[in-house]
C-alpha cells in the first residue's frame, strides 16, 4: 500500500477506534499482555458512553491495580487492603446520586477482603464490584491465592496446589450469588475481541443498574491471565486460561435482575 493511500485513510473523519480520553496517558504499570489494562479501558469506555464521568467515583484496591487512580481519569479513592467495598459503601451513602464502583483483584476481594465483600453484598449496597480473578497474587511475586486452581503451580505451591493441605479454591462469584443483596452476578473474560465485547455489555448493564437505582450489588468477575505469575508468554497464558481456568470458572451470567439465570 502506498504512503499516499495510507495518509488518505488515516484522517480524523475515518476514525473508528481510539483509546478513551478517560484513560490517562501514563504508561500502565502492568506486565505486557495483562488483562488489567483491558478491564480498565472497558470500564472507562462504559463511563464515557453513559456520559457519567462527572458523577462516577472509583475505589482502587491493594494489589497490582493499586495505581488504578493513576490511569483512570475520574475521581478515585484508594482503599486499605480488602476494604474497598466498605469504603464504597461509605461513599455511596454520603453521595447517593454518585455512581460508585470498586475494582479489586482476587487477593484483595477473595482473601483479605472476604468479610467486607460478603457483608457489603449482603446489605445490598447499590454499588458495582469489578473482580479481576487471575488465580494468583500477582504483585507480590506469584504466591498461591484462595482462587489458585488445584494442582496449579505458584511460588508458594511449587509442586502444585495440594487441596488436602491447602484447601480448595474459592468460587467467590458463585458464593455471593446466593446472597439476596446481589442484584446482578456475572463472569466474563477479556482475552479475545468477542469476550471483550461481552464483558463491556455486562459492565454497561452493571452501571445502568446503579444509575436506575435498582437495588443491590452488581458483581462482575473478569477472569484474567497473569503471565508473569504463571511464567508464560501472554499468548500462551491466554490459551492456558481457556484450557484450565474456564472449566473451573465457567463464563456466563449467574444472576440478572435479581433472578438466577437457568442454564
Amino acid at each position, binding site marked *: 500500500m502506498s504512503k499516499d493511500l495510507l495518509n488518505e*485513510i488515516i484522517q480524523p473523519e475515518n476514525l473508528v477506534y*481510539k483509546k478513551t480520553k478517560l484513560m490517562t496517558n501514563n504508561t500502565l504499570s502492568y506486565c505486557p499482555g495483562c488483562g488489567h*489494562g483491558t478491564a480498565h*479501558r472497558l470500564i472507562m469506555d462504559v463511563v464515557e458512553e453513559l456520559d457519567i464521568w462527572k458523577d462516577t467515583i472509583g475505589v482502587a484496591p491493594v494489589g497490582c491495580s493499586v495505581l488504578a487512580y493513576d490511569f483512570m481519569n475520574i475521581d478515585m479513592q484508594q482503599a486499605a487492603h480488602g476494604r474497598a467495598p466498605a469504603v464504597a459503601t461509605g461513599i455511596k451513602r454520603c453521595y447517593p446520586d454518585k455512581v460508585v464502583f470498586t475494582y479489586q483483584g482476587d487477593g484483595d476481594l477473595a482473601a483479605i477482603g472476604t468479610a467486607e465483600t460478603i457483608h457489603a453484598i449482603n446489605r445490598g449496597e447499590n454499588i458495582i464490584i469489578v473482580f479481576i480473578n487471575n488465580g494468583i497474587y500477582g504483585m507480590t511475586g506469584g504466591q498461591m491465592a484462595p482462587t489458585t486452581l488445584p494442582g496449579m503451580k505458584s511460588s508458594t505451591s511449587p509442586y502444585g496446589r495440594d487441596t488436602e493441605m491447602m484447601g480448595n479454591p474459592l468460587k467467590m462469584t458463585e458464593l455471593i450469588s446466593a446472597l439476596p443483596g446481589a442484584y446482578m452476578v456475572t463472569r466474563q473474560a477479556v482475552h479475545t475481541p468477542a469476550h471483550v465485547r461481552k464483558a463491556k455489555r455486562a459492565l454497561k448493564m452493571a452501571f445502568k443498574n446503579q444509575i436506575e437505582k435498582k437495588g443491590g450489588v452488581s458483581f462482575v468477575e473478569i477472569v484474567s491471565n497473569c503471565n508473569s505469575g504463571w511464567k508464560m508468554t501472554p499468548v500462551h497464558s491466554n490459551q492456558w486460561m481457556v484450557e484450565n481456568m474456564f472449566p473451573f470458572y465457567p463464563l456466563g451470567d449467574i444472576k440478572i435482575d435479581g433472578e438466577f439465570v437457568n442454564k
Partner: protein
Amino acid sequence: MAKIKGAIVVDIEHCKGCEVCIDACPTQVIEMHEQVNGKGYHYAYMAQPDACTGCTNCAIVCPDGVITVYRKKMAE
C-alpha cells in the same frame, strides 16, 4: 462493490510487545517490528497494510490501548 480499507496507528512508546493483537487480527496484518522502542519492547506494526479491514479487533484487545483504528470506504 466499494472496498473497505483500514489502517492502524500504533503508539510505539506505549506498546509492550505482548503480541495479543497478532492473535486477534483475522487477516494477519500485524507483526512485531524487529526494532525496539525506548523501553526495549518490540512493537506492533502493520506488516501487511493491504489486508487491513479496520475491524478494530486488535485495538479492543490491546491491554495498553495503544492502537488507533481508521477505516474508509474506497471507491472502485
